[in-house]
């Protein structure tokens, strides 16, 4: 997804009084290029994750593997609102975030199979990948830990006086961790440029939000800290992009943090070994057939005659080829040399 880097917006009006708390904007009007960019970006994540699931089934990927299928619009729409240098950090369901941040599919897949050519030389695995170059700060396996870390990225932006924003992702489950609120407090107190993106996929592993959360409106979770929040249709990439624009503008103009509750859904289980018996098949099927983020874009592209079935098939093939190449690479690349056991422990 080669999203063209936008210029940082200049402060709207010198001396203008602070804007009032933003409200959920209407979905963005996408032009043809944007629709195609979103389509391709989401499709890459979907196909990549399907392939990862398959490789897991074949024993090439071990341990824990959390797939992002269903939630693709969230990272794709957010990425479309970024400028160069903006950071992203998330938890363990992270493959989609990495692909959205343009990390190499080969590097990600080879990390999943634990190979030397993986982004972390095979020493991190599914939940722990990073890229300083692409401003991707992981990949964290401890639920909620990335929220304090992401707040620290924003702290660094403010310390350096740049215009960059930290995109800090976490789930509805992590939203109940204590350090999230410690971070909210500091971020608001110090007006740190951080967007807290709560990916509410309705289930914290197997516990539904209504069974785990006293306040299920996550956009209100910052209320005690004076952090505004917006509810966003996380299945509609245009709605996500519009929210990203509002939120990044808010942060870049020095207003401090903001919360985006992305209402989304994961089609697969929490991890590969989750039979997902805590929800009905109808519920999953309904989301897939009525709200699928990729199908929505596809339908618009066809309706507006911006692409026909053949052109979409060509994109599909191109994406499948990238994924097949990454899978082939990840299965044939060599395992890390034994000497790697002892490297990278300290500098």
């Amino acid at each position, binding site marked *: 997804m080669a999203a063209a880097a936008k210029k940082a917006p200049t402060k709207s009006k010198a001396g203008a009084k602070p804007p009032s708390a933003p409200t959920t904007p209407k979905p963005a009007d996408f032009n043809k290029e944007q629709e195609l960019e979103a389509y391709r970006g989401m499709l890459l994540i979907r196909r990549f994750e399907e392939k990862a699931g*398959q490789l897991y089934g074949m024993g090439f990927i071990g341990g824990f593997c959390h797939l992002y299928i269903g939630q693709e619009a969230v990272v794709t729409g957010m990425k479309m609102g970024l400028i160069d240098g903006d950071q992203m950090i998330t938890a363990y369901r992270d493959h989609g975030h990495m692909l959205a941040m343009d990390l190499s599919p080969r590097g990600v897949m080879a990390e999943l199979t634990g190979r030397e050519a993986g982004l972390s*030389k095979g020493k991190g695995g599914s939940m722990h990948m*990073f890229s300083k170059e692409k401003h991707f700060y992981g990949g964290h396996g401890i639920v909620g830990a990335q*929220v*304090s870390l992401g707040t620290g990225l924003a702290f660094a932006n403010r310390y350096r006086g740049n215009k960059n924003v930290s995109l800090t992702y976490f789930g509805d489950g992590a939203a109940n961790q204590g350090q999230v609120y410690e971070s909210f407090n500091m971020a608001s107190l110090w007006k740190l440029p951080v967007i807290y993106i709560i990916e509410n996929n309705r289930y914290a592993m197997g516990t539904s939000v209504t069974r785990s959360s006293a306040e299920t409106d996550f956009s209100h979770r910052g209320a005690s800290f004076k952090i505004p929040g917006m509810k966003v249709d996380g299945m509609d990439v245009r709605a996500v992009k519009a929210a990203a624009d509002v939120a990044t503008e808010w942060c870049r103009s020095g207003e401090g943090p903001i919360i985006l509750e992305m209402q989304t859904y994961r089609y697969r289980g929490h991890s590969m070994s989750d039979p997902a018996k805590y929800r009905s098949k109808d519920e999953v099927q309904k989301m897939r057939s009525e709200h699928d983020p990729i199908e929505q874009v596809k339908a618009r592209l066809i309706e507006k005659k911006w692409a026909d079935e053949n052109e979409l098939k060509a994109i599909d093939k191109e994406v499948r080829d990238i994924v097949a190449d990454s899978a082939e690479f990840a299965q044939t690349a060599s395992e890390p040399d034994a000497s790697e056991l002892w*490297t990278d*422990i300290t500098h």
Partner: protein
Amino acid sequence: MPIEILMPALSPTMEEGNVSKWLKNEGDKVAAGDVIAEIETDKATMEVEAVDEGVLGKILIAAGTEGVKVNTPIAVLLEEGESASDIGGAPAAKKADAPAAAEQPAPAAEPAAPTVAAAPKTEVAADPDIPAGTEMVSTTVREALRDAMAEEMRRDDAVFVMGEEVAEYQGAYKITQGLLQEFGARRVVDTPITEHGFAGVGVGAAMTGLKPIVEFMTFNFAMQAIDQIVNSAAKTLYMSGGQMGAPIVFRGPNGAAARVAAQHSQCYAAWYGHIPGLKVVMPYTAADAKGLLKAAIRDPNPVIFLENEILYGQAFDVPKMDDFVLPIGKARIHKTGSDVTIVSFGIGMTYAVKAEAELRGMGIDAEIIDLRTIRPLDLDTIIASVKKTNRLVVVEEGFPQSSVGDFIANQVSQRAFDHLDAPVITIAGKDVPMPYAANLEKLALPNVGEVVEAVKAVTYR
């Protein structure tokens, strides 16, 4: 070409499973994402989704079959334009992806090499030479720590201090006195009382290349933050394959102060010393406090810097030099001797030093080694000394089980057993939560008499 659907592994530990039900029949059209079968694993009954689209050409393993090994072909999928006759012999069909997969289901399951190479040794530089005639200035540990931070903050704008009461209050123990006035609120940051949160904020900032000094009012409170210290700060360099680390210092008073009871009186040297990826420093003298804190701030790794409230006010000579930096990972021979080696660190050194004076009166010439750094541990210096004295006593205030002394005794017994003329004696705090009552607190801590007795025991006096 027809695609074989293989028996999938559906948990980190699954090797075989049962095909309990087929949800598609031969001849059914299948789209990617459609559930085609149910498989019973060692943990649950799982649905199997198709990855590719096509027509289910043939079911190879009937519903109800048990003990099907992972990666066994269970069905064949026909792509557009193919018919069942294309299947031919199933073995000739294209494997879903990897030709080698069926034969090598789990590359990771290969037996590990029988021997594992030892960790490579890293050389640590010796202390810098102090030029003859260098003025020595009597300095408290408190002042030395402050001077170290101020010097490094002048030198590098990426260095900043954050913690509770570090700015306007001038430090709960006045270690950051004057820093706010010199460096301003941007670089001397008062935090809310929120250890877990600000430790994580510090680590996040460090991952971008800033060099935070995070002050914990005491290390007892850092238990709230230990996940960020261990899981985020210490492990990121390894987990990122060397791409990204956390150049951060966590510092503050550690161990028992006086009469503050169990929750505020605990030594964390052994706790953090356990963790690969961390460096752990615990100075005794003001000179070491200064030189090592400057080194810790410059170090690209996370450093745990364990101070002691009782030592803050003690004065030691500190060389007056422009840039006095000491090596992390190098013990210091505090006093040379020939009859016995006493190893200690931090406030433990106060017992060792006093005991040595008493022992001298008894005609016992003790060598005292101040570890200064707990991790990486300078075992070479200890072992060289033991080879000379053949006797070893280790002194620390922390709890006895799995203590720093335990590890040293173990390593010395493995590496210098033949040089020992007596069992190693480890002196630690008593195995009890720290009591409040003055007399009980005294009993819980090590004392000089214990050290003297231990030395007498290993020297058979």
